[in-house]
């Protein structure tokens, strides 16, 4: 949150843009002008409360709601790790994360417990395993494994790094990184779960994420994942860490070591929590496979691409030139996208069908208000995917105002002129 504010990102991302791209079904979630800052404030304060363990339940619910609201305002800023934080905080609503070493537990003796049921911690581990393993499965495709794409595009441009810079000019490095990355994602959950390999696994986690931090602009994500991976370790390690913190802050850690195990205040709360969590995981396991319901190449149509741990899989570059036609006088003209969209919005819009359609609708309304009673909107768009030459993306003869906005398959896209095999 501090990073967002300091970089002026709230202003740039949510307040300056003329339109915001909504998620299907969440069109009602819109930036609220200057009040947008309030949401960020709520989010930041609740995050601090959660980490202190003060008024935990309310704080985590507020955090989940405010953080998710921020993400839903504009899908331009969609990132898998924001989604991760959203669902992790949702999961944590149902977990007693404040039972130990928290202000709540300090004040409330009934809540204070040295132990919590194993399933509560296991559920977080399980979520992390899903993230890694699904990210690994997504890499099992012909572009990643046999064309070393998109790393073959990304790595050579990092030529100025010491030592690695030269290695990145060599093709075997691109393949090595691709295969190692896929192996890492698929194996790391098991390496972390098995006690004997855990320390090695954690070292791999640190190396892997620091490397991605150096190579790619991925913000906080590497640090989040490194710290999250600590959850796989036994209580001993966590007790040691808390011991250090206690000494520095002069907190009596012993107050919390009362040898009791957390029990849910009422049995229906426990049952309800467990059922919600089970349902949650069932959805998490199935949702990433929804792309199978759509024909066509997933990377091309992106139907079912989001929310499924597909990270760093594509280098997709696009260019969309919108044409407005006034059927009454036959005049037509092209749109300068920079008049309506921020650079980031334009970038995301030009490679993703749902953005293109939403923008076309915005343009339709804009020109209806500005003198064209029934404007027709066409787009000439080209997309290059993973080093292939640019191809026509949207059917340029389709008047986009006649296309319905829905979750159904998009028949107005041009077919992908190649094949990517794999999951």
């Amino acid at each position, binding site marked *: 949150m501090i990073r967002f504010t300091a*970089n002026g*990102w709230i202003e740039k*991302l949510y307040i300056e843009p003329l339109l915001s791209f909504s998620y299907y079904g969440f069109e009602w979630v819109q930036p609220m002008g200057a009040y947008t800052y309030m949401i960020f404030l709520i989010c930041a304060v609740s995050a601090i409360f959660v980490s202190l363990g003060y008024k935990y339940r309310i704080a985590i619910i507020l955090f989940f709601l405010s953080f998710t609201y921020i993400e839903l305002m504009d899908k331009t*800023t969609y*990132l*898998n*790790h924001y989604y991760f934080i959203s669902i992790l905080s949702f999961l944590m609503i149902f977990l007693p994360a404040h039972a130990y070493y928290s202000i709540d537990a300090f004040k409330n003796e009934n809540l204070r417990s040295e132990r919590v049921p194993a399933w509560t911690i296991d559920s977080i581990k399980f979520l992390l395993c899903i993230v890694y393993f699904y990210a690994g499965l997504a890499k099992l495709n012909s572009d990643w494994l*046999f*064309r*070393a794409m998109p790393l*073959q*595009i*990304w790595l*050579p*441009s990092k*030529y*100025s790094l010491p030592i690695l*810079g*030269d290695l990145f*000019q060599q*093709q*075997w490095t691109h*393949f*090595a990184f691709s*295969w190692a990355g896929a*192996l890492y994602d698929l*194996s790391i959950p098991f*390496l972390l779960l098995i006690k004997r*390999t855990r320390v*090695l696994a954690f070292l791999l986690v640190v190396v892997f994420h620091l490397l991605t931090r150096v190579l*790619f*602009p*991925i*913000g*906080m*994500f590497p640090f989040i994942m490194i710290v999250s991976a600590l959850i796989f370790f036994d209580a001993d390690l966590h007790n040691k860490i808390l011991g250090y913190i206690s000494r520095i802050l002069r907190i009596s850690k012993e107050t919390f070591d009362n040898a009791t195990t957390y029990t849910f205040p009422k049995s229906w709360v426990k049952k309800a929590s467990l059922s919600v969590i089970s349902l949650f995981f069932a959805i998490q396991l199935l949702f990433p496979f929804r792309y199978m319901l759509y024909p066509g190449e997933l990377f091309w149509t992106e139907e079912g691409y989001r929310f499924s741990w597909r*990270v760093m899989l594509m*280098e997709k*570059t696009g*260019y969309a*030139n919108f044409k*407005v036609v*006034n059927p009454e006088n036959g*005049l037509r*003209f092209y*749109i*300068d996208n920079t*008049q309506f969209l*921020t*650079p*980031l919005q*334009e970038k995301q819009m030009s490679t993703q069908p749902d953005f293109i359609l939403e923008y076309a609708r915005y343009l339709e309304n804009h020109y209806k208000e500005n*003198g064209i009673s029934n404007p027709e909107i066409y787009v*000439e768009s*080209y*997309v*290059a995917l993973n*080093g292939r*030459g*640019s191809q026509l993306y949207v059917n340029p003869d389709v008047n986009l105002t006649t296309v319905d906005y829905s979750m159904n398959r998009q028949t107005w896209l041009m077919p992908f002129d190649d094949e990517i095999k794999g999951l």
Partner: protein
Amino acid sequence: MKKTIFLFLSTLIFLSCTDNGPSGPDVDDFDREAILVNWADNIIIPSFQNFAAETEALKLASEIFSADPTLQNLTDLRSQWLDSYKAWQHVSMFEMGTVMNFRDYLNTYPTNANESSFNSDESKTIQNNIETGDYNLILPSSRNTQGFPALDYLLYGLADNDAELLSFYTTNDHADAYRAYVTDLTTRIDTLTDTVLDNWINGYRDEFVSNTGSGANSSFNMMVNDFIFYYEKHLRAGKIGIPAGATNISSGNPSPIHVEAYYSRNFSKILFMESLDSVQNFFNGSNFKSQQSGESLDDYLDYLKTMKEGTDLSTVINNQFEISREKAAVLNDNFVAQVDNDPFLMLATYDELQRNVVYLKVDMLQALNITPDYFDSDGD
């Protein structure tokens, strides 16, 4: 044990892939610094030196004319104006190392000529500036009353014939002010240009060449972004698209007032062709003086061996420049007449220029892995 297997497997996989993978970059590192040196020493600085010499001559010609506004001196000044304007087309794309909004001060058109001209703000027209003497060319708000387009108006647009035009500088109530305004404009152009050239030679050149990183603020990335921006906005849209009615600025109607060098009529195509040449020369790294090819984007694309429809991307892009040039060749020298008579022919040129926006912005940027001047947010 698991570790050993893991390492062994990975090594095996790395080795097995080296022999039979698809073609990719050669082993030896490509030197982006060589491109920066070529751009700076063989293209940018020589182009600015040439332009600075022209603007100096323009200033001199305007002083001669102001001292003695004869038809001969007017003709000389016009001819020097055209030479300078052509030289301008070879530096217009460069923004790095220049002064803020350099391009806008020198070439904002349509110019704000008088109360009847396009978008005119009556208190800030050239005519008003001259008649009141109340103007400050350093202010950003005065951009559309100075530079080459303002001179275009003053040297060609004041009257329908030369005798009448000369009278503005001889017998008009404000004749002194007209003469002073012309020299003020040429002095302004010359001073700004000297500042830029001086900056490039004394310091910025070394800064530019040594900033070899690959980040968004590296010289290479910024220059490529500037290059594409110029091509898209100033060449494609500014010189062809907007006058032909391709953009929402005129809601699809042809708009002759948006033609570059609108008042002199016959030079719009010459200026456009110069600009197209300079863009292609930059892409190929052609030495400004000798036209010999040096390291540039074409070589880098060849190095990355980006294949495109069976041919190299650099060839595809160069071919597309040629196609655009052929399309433009049939246009009237006077784009105002072209737009009035047959805007569709001009739109055909626009379409071919547009095709190269896709090659440059989509294919080339992807191959070079350059992020457009987009927002610096996180990715995942």
